[in-house]
């Protein structure tokens, strides 16, 4: 196709990363593609994004998109704290975090929960494949009880439901999706990027090398068979608002902090993602029925972000002038008087 420029004058290719070194068919690659597409389509300048990750195949993926964005491939399970610090230092940038189920549900669970508690404004993607890909296929904490992997055996423990964890931690944006449903992933990503607070996307992202058997709830085939979207979601950017028309009876809308809209077209039964109890129930139902329920499970725009809770100045701290950083000579003399 002929290269077309987006609103900030960039081509699709300006959003690409280094060639991926992940396995062919890895779910993580398809998520990377959606990230690039979304940033291009929303005309986000790559310089206004930071990429964050922990350690794992999933956490490597930020190297494979947005070469023109700064990134930090931090430590295993520690992306949330690094992201918290970065966003406190510069609240003008948007953060795209990519983690894995091992990175988040095993070693990183504590930081994950506490970042949500503080409502650190970042998009927090978990590329959830139920295994440790990079260390060659051991069970992660999201693997189903009773699942069997050859060479490794049976997993005797209950899985961690990362969306339920997010609900328990009062996260204001909780979504689940499936790497095999790129359209939904894309719309959810767009919405998440407009949300001022922690936006959690628990995306089932099959590991084709170690956990893609039909019997695995983290496989492509399982996902294709069991995905049940709770609604058909469309993101409408601010400028486009006027143009969109939709059937109000069929569709509920949610307005985001920047004025953009999410259109949720109801499928069989209608579902209200602003109802906390309903969200928890939905997750419980999904567990019982073993369905891969996807979509925007819960949204609450009323929680202040970390920076607002801390009453922080709008200017990035990293850009403050010396005189804003160093109090006056007089102030020092004044306060030392109390110690005489």
């Amino acid at each position: 196709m002929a290269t077309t420029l987006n609103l900030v004058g960039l081509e699709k290719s300006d959003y690409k990363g280094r060639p991926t070194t992940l396995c062919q068919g890895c779910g993580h690659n398809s998520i990377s593609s959606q990230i690039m597409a979304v940033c291009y389509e929303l005309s986000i300048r790559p310089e206004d994004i930071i990429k964050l990750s922990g350690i794992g195949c999933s956490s490597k993926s930020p190297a494979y998109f947005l070469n023109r964005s700064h990134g930090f491939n931090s430590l295993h399970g520690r992306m949330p704290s690094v992201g918290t610090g970065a966003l406190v230092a510069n609240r003008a940038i948007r953060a795209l975090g990519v983690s894995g189920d091992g990175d988040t549900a095993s070693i990183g669970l504590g930081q994950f929960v506490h970042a949500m508690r503080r409502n650190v404004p970042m998009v927090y993607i978990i590329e959830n494949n139920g295994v440790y890909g990079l260390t060659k296929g051991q069970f992660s904490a999201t693997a189903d009880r009773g699942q069997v992997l050859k060479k490794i055996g049976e997993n005797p423990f209950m899985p961690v439901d990362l969306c339920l964890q997010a609900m328990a931690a009062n996260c204001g944006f909780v979504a689940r999706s499936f790497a095999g449903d790129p359209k939904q992933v894309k719309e959810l990503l767009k919405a998440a990027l407009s949300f001022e607070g922690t936006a959690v996307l628990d995306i089932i992202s099959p590991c084709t090398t170690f956990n893609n058997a039909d019997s695995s709830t983290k496989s492509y085939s399982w996902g294709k068979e069991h995905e049940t979207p709770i609604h058909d979601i469309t993101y409408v950017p601010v400028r486009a608002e006027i143009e969109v028309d939709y059937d109000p009876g069929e569709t509920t809308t949610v307005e985001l902090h920047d004025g953009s809209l999410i259109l949720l077209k109801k499928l069989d039964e209608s579902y209200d993602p602003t109802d906390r109890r309903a969200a928890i129930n939905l997750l419980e139902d999904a567990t019982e029925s073993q369905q891969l329920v996807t979509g925007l499970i819960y949204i609450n725009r009323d929680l202040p972000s970390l920076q607002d809770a801390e009453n922080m100045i709008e200017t990035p701290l990293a850009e403050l002038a010396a005189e804003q950083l160093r109090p006056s000579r007089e102030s020092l003399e004044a306060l030392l008087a109390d110690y005489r």
Partner: protein
Amino acid sequence: MTEVATRPAPSPGDSSEREPIVNDFSMVVATVNGTGSQTSNMALIRALFRMGIPVTGKNLFPSNIQGLPTWFTIRTSAEGYSARRETIEILVAMNQATFQEDLASLAPGGVCFYADDFTVQLNRDDVTYYAMPIQELIKEVQPPRQLKDYVANMAYVGIVAEMLGIDLAEVRGALETHFRGKAKPVELNMQMVDAAAEWAREHLTKQDLFRVERDDQTEGLIIMDGNTAGALGALYGGMSLTAWYPITPASSLAEAIRDYAPQLRTDPETGKATYSIIQAEDELAAIGMAIGAGWAGARAMTSTSGPGISLMAEFTGLAFFAEIPVVIWDIQRMGPSTGLPTRTSQGDILFVRFLGHGDTKNVMLLPGSIGECFEFGWRAFDIAERLQTPVFVLSDLDLGMNLWMSPPFEYPEAPMDRGKVLSAEDLERLGSFARYKDVDGDGIPYRTLPGTDHPLAAWFARGTGHNEHAVYSERPDDWVSNMERLWRKTDTARSYVPEPILDEMEGAEAALISYGSTDPAITEARDRLKEDGLATSYMRLRAVPFTEQVAAFVEAHERIYVVEMNTDGQMRQLLQLEYPQYATRFISLNHNDGLPLTAYWISEQISAREGN
């Protein structure tokens, strides 16, 4: 107290001693913690300080909130010494549980003030006793119930002041400062002070030799704890993020930042904070946040103690290798493990130097006074951003939590050094950028900050092996050249850290090397040794890695005592590693029992070894 006197003091019999001992004693107030004796002790020490008398205050407290023995020691020193002493001349006994032990620890000829409702035996006849009718005085003053304990403590302030000659006007002044001028509490407390002094005047006759007199030695000085000083230093150094997790004895540093930040760092226009202080969920998160902020271009720090340092090992290695500036305060306490949270030590030196698996070498600053806590508080950021590496400031409980005199802190003259940061304009001019290229040959590469508006700006920070472009590389040559550059940088560090403080004496035979909070004891010990005819040279280290001056000092002296408070002689080991050719010159003088070193111990050790 648990320490027994090891140095003889004059007994009252001895007539040569009949003339008064002025401004020269250690007084310990033995109380139960949680009974609010801070106010009364502060009032006493501040009053003495304002009378121009050199003082220091040390609080020896248990790892407990309420109900266990606590000892607050005030030392006055005509010569201006501020180290701990073994001997206690004056005991203010407010805790019956430890009375006998406390009494036993009094020096011969000492003085014992005690609450008259104690049921104890006064089984020493070489001590002067003054009973204090605390309950009576309470009845008299009738303080509000919830303030009873606090006011009760003011009784000993009044009596002690009267008997030693502490000016009550200064006590009042001290209380006014303490209560930030609030009249009500001042009056309430002074009521008791006056009543008690009054009572003493009427009922007690001075029998001991100790008293105070106005002096002029504290003119213009301040008195403060090291953690507050460090906090102020950080605030004047442009601290933008403090991410911390509570731990004794470090908490009060972050808490002082929290207390002072609003008045010092609120944006006048918007009324909003130009900083952030986050109490993290643990130390891993605390340093993680600081490193994230350092990467994004803010001046970020964390403060902790031993256990937190252990938990920060992995992140320290990341910051060292990805070259992210961050400042870490370690207010050292007694270890290993949880150890003694309320006792002091210098036991983290060796561990911090090599903190992080694989090959690491960390920069350490070693403040030896509250003045240096302030100075290193801001300078640490300059060094960290200049070197793009973690900078540790190693203080300890004694320096951090106790009260020290100091000249007023010097306002930082030099502008902040933000290090090698490239702007969009720079990138435009240069036309290319390689994050880890050694452009200047000093091992320090250039960095760009997230948000820099230029297509060349971006780089991918990582703890994995990388080439000059921050791209993952397993090539042996990439690894080796990057490590060679990093080692070059650890050498460059020598020229950015504070030089040691040298004091060579005429005809010095022995030399001393030390660092941190041992300085006052050493200064005093050297004077004593000098008196006994033993001149010594002294170098106080203020940083690792060592500078040229350190090398010169080591070369110049054949017998070097390394004085420190840890079990393993840790700084001695770092010196031996740095100067193998002189490895046998270093003699460990280490003592590590949780209490600050004393001049007595040091001088005894040295004269013994020097065959004096």
